[in-house]
């Protein structure tokens, strides 16, 4: 195409036609670019820039320093802990399930069933998820009541509380595990049967195969997916809000309160709060993209 364009022998009509087509293509993409600029990029940039400004609009790093006050740091920290725990546990269990259906020799019908269910469960988040766990593991929930009735075991007597770090993590797992299953299955499918056969012929045990062949190939995928789960949990708010109200001060709930009523009494500190969130999710996603590039070398 471009060759044709540069060819002086091409009739001028062709060149003009091609110019027109390219122009039309840009016109066709323009709505998307305008939309992305107005409703995705500029709003985010506004907050990022605002995070570096004082109320009069002068450049400052003070907002970023102010993020390091205990109340804000603890909110970031709880968010990171919940996201991290639910991502790591979710990734481990998700890996186990994906492994079981892909390589575990289970009957064929189980895999599509699990995949469909995972599609549903990974989208069953937000407020209804919180309601479901309250109805199950809340103080009068089914499991709580049944455990007391049949085993005389009160989970709340052990210090467990659904409205706490572990309660929230346990709830998040409900969408984290299925998400892991969905995004890791293609990677497990990519493990070629020949590799296993080759290592078996060369006398490797199953353990050696995993340590020296499968794991070195899979680890970028596993780690990358774990990072994706982390980012997924980090930005979530509705489940935590419905579950804990504001008793568990995760960063999204703090930001929600800040947007609603400027609880920090400093709008620019609010922008910095958002900036910190973008920084963390950006870092996780950047790492994920880098790892995905690595894993694609082997798993195509």
């Amino acid at each position, binding site marked *: 195409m471009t060759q044709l364009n540069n060819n002086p022998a091409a009739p001028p009509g062709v060149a003009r036609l091609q110019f027109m087509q390219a122009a039309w*293509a840009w016109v066709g993409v323009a709505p998307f670019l305008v939309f992305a600029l107005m409703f995705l990029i500029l709003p985010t940039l506004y907050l990022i820039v605002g995070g570096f400004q004082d109320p009069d609009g002068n450049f400052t790093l003070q907002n970023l320093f102010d993020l390091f006050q205990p109340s804000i740091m603890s909110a970031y920290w709880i968010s990171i802990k919940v996201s991290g725990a639910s991502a790591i546990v979710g990734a481990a269990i998700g890996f186990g399930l994906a492994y079981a259906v892909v390589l575990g020799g289970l009957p064929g019908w189980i895999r599509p069933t699990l995949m469909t269910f995972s599609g549903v469960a990974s*989208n069953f988040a937000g*407020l209804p998820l919180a309601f479901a766990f309250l109805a199950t593991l809340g103080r009068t929930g089914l499991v709580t009541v049944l455990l007391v009735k049949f085993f005389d075991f009160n989970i709340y007597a052990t210090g467990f509380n659904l409205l706490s770090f572990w309660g929230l993590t346990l709830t998040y797992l409900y969408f984290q595990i299925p998400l892991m299953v969905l995004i890791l299955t293609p990677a497990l499918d990519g493990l070629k049967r020949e590799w296993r056969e080759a290592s078996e012929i060369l006398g490797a045990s199953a353990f050696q195969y995993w340590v020296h062949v499968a794991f070195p190939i899979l680890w970028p995928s596993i780690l990358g997916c774990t990072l994706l789960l982390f980012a997924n949990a980090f930005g979530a708010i509705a489940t935590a809000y419905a579950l804990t109200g504001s008793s568990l001060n995760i960063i999204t709930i703090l930001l929600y309160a800040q947007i609603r009523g400027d609880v920090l009494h400093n709008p620019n500190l609010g922008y910095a709060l958002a900036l910190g969130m973008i920084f963390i999710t950006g870092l996780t996603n950047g790492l994920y993209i880098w790892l995905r590039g690595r894993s694609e070398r082997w798993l195509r």
Partner: protein
Amino acid sequence: MTRREKVNTMKQSRLGSWIALVIGTLYFVVPLVGTFEFSLRMRRGEYSLDAYRSVFADSNFQDSFLYSCGMALATIFIGVLIVVPTAYWVQLRLRKLRPVIEFITLLPLVIPAIVIVFGYLRLYNSSSMIPLTAEVWSTDLLLALSYVTLALPYMYRAVDTGLRAIDVRTLTEAAENLGAGWTTILFKVILPNVRSAILSGAFLTFAIVIGEFTMASLLNRPAFGPYLQLVGANRAYEPSALAVMAFVLTWACMGLINVFGRAKQTKHAG
């Protein structure tokens, strides 16, 4: 390793798979059973559907649910209008732009929804240059557009995959040779060919939008998400009835995606 030993280890690993599956199933089924059981407990001493009756009788439920359904339709409409031409032209002529466009479509996964809506409230508040939040209709528009950003990664991915499966270039050239203009090409040739991909994206969008809380709540619109939050904070049994309904709805959306996805596959095979 003798053959017998090998069979034994195979059996062992299969047993492990079954154990993993059973534990997984328990973790996922128990909350559903628990929620359903809880939703039946409203009448003292016996199971009843009172909680569901109470939900359906609530006019706020009907209003907010219809409002969110309307929002979902608007989101799907705007989303298709923005995504399909873009994916089409990127596929056909602007291949160099592909990484940029793909990066943009993935941004909503990087920037949390609450941050995006925070930006809207600063950029488009009633005292700004573009006061979108000043009027009800323009706030609704802003909410729909915010949902388009949320759905963008899924919508674009679905349509792009659909476009890759057909020969866009040949179809376009054939249509051009027959004298079709670009609107005809887009709406009469390309769109019908990626219909199942669009429908998949649409149902996923619907599932995302219908219970969305953050955007609707911060833009102060009477959507289903904020309604759920209100019921959750004030009622005992209705929330679990709503959770059961939400689960059924999500299941329906995913089921429809599967149906359309499969229809596409069989069409290709045949």
